[in-house]
């Protein structure tokens, strides 16, 4: 039960979280309700919902929201599919599996901001290795300025994100696969199901909980993407890769509009929460229908 001793043991953790997470969340919500002006120090002027209604007429807000949605949907969809494929492959027994698993984990362990630079180099228009490879195979006749044009810039971000976070999905799915008893698969085999049917009718339904966890985490993290667009494109060209997080950051530290930046961050977070809740709701419904 909640003895005094237990509470004392929990106290340091609660304090740390209160200072670093809870108070800042309250503060950012507060700031989003004010016009924040910089004189000597910060001066707050009550704004009510004005900062939020400002987003309605702000085409750049809608553009960032669309960018974020496109980025999240594309990268999460690809990551889920690839993550499942990787997991199924590395779940098989073969020699050196342990080493292979940890090498495949590497992208997820390396710093995003640093590897974002590595990807910019790969996608470089004049000296990048991707243009060279695609040219050699005959897919491209002239080099593409990947980071310089709206659609291709988004593609570069998605590729880098998929590279980086597929291992995360793979890990969760691997853990799920280990939880499927061998007898279940054996029974399916005895019943004469082909490999494809076993995967579709037995394995994937049993993996649903793992898949939902991976989906929820990935969706919310991709939605909050900051490192990749900041380093690779800076939100450009022409704001076509600016995400919600990056827009809030620009409002804070480029335009020094702290009230509006806070409103963007808060509204973004609320939308993210709604997004995940509804995705999980729909997914659970579908899952319930299937079984």
């Amino acid at each position: 039960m909640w003895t005094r001793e237990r509470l004392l043991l929990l106290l340091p953790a609660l304090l740390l979280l209160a200072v670093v997470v809870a108070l800042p969340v309250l503060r950012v919500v507060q700031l989003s309700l004010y016009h924040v002006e910089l004189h000597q120090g910060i001066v707050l002027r009550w704004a009510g919902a004005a900062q939020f209604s400002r987003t309605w007429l702000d085409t750049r807000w809608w553009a960032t929201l669309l960018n974020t949605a496109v980025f999240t949907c594309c990268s999460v969809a690809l990551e889920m599919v690839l993550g499942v494929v990787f997991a199924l492959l590395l779940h098989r027994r073969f020699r050196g599996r342990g080493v292979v698993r940890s090498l495949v984990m590497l992208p997820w362990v390396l710093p995003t901001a640093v590897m974002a630079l590595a990807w910019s180099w790969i996608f470089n228009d004049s000296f990048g290795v991707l243009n060279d490879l695609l040219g050699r195979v005959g897919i491209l006749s002239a080099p593409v300025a990947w980071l310089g044009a709206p659609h291709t810039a988004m593609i570069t971000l998605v590729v880098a994100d998929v590279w980086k976070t597929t291992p995360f999905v793979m890990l969760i799915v691997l853990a799920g696969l280990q939880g499927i008893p061998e007898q279940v698969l054996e029974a399916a085999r005895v019943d004469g199901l082909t490999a494809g049917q076993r995967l579709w009718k037995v394995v994937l339904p049993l993996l649903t909980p793992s898949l939902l966890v991976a989906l929820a985490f990935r969706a919310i993290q991709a939605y909050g993407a900051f490192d990749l667009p900041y380093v690779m494109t800076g939100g450009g060209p022409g704001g076509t890769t600016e995400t919600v997080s990056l827009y809030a950051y620009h409002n804070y530290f480029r335009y020094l509009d702290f009230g509006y930046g806070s409103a963007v961050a808060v509204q973004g977070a609320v939308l993210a929460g709604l997004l995940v809740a509804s995705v999980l709701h729909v997914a659970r419904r579908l899952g319930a229908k299937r079984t």
Partner: protein
Amino acid sequence: MNRTRLIEGRTALLVTFAVGLVLAWSLAPAVWQALTALKPDVQITKVPTSYLPHPVTMQHFASLWERKPLGLYLANSAWIATWATLLCVAVAAPAATALARLPGRGREGVLLALLMLSLFPPILLLFPLYEGVRGLGWINHPLALVLPYAALNLPLAVWVLESALRALPAELDEAARLDGLSTLRRLWRIHLPLALPSLATTCILVFIFCWNEFMLALTFMTRDTSKTITGGIASVSGASLYEIPWGQLSAAIVIATLPLILLVLLFQRRIVSGLTRGALKG
């Protein structure tokens, strides 16, 4: 008999091929960076691309080391990540003990609340934390990152440690209690030594996440000598987009990632098992 063997052989070949592809995809960007870092400048900007460095040169590492306080970046990252990890675990371990033996719904509730906290997009905290850090005069001070890093990784640490402590047999507690040990003593003398593998995993993971953090490091560390490796490398680029010194940049990337690669290869098993449990953190 022969037929099944043939099929098995063919599957094995296919699996090997697929594993090769997956490995190539996972490693190519890092390998390419290393190759670039070792090439002379003329080769880096050669069209069509020349793939292998010839001759192998260390010039980029040398000139980078001269131009940027890279050793300091590394030292800052290591220092900050170490203290943040220690603080995080020191706070998480007592909390995990308290939760591990908590019966019923309370435990799940607290763990779930922690999980929710770890899902908050960091941008939400950025500005208020910046205000606080400025107010305390901590801009460019390691504490500005140590405290947030410890707190942001706390949910992960509590999750991993709690599951390890809960797995320990309950009789241990009884015996220790009869010996008159207080809860903290019991944690320190009996529980943590027994949960050492999980403790190590937690430390490694938290350390890696601290090492990799970018947004807060970028914002709170403005002086060149205070920067961490992630923030520092973002400032390696030249004056304009068109004069990025790619050789040096690649060298910097290699230097920033090498410690992590070594860590992963050394502790591969621990990390994979820990990540599987802690994967929830991301």
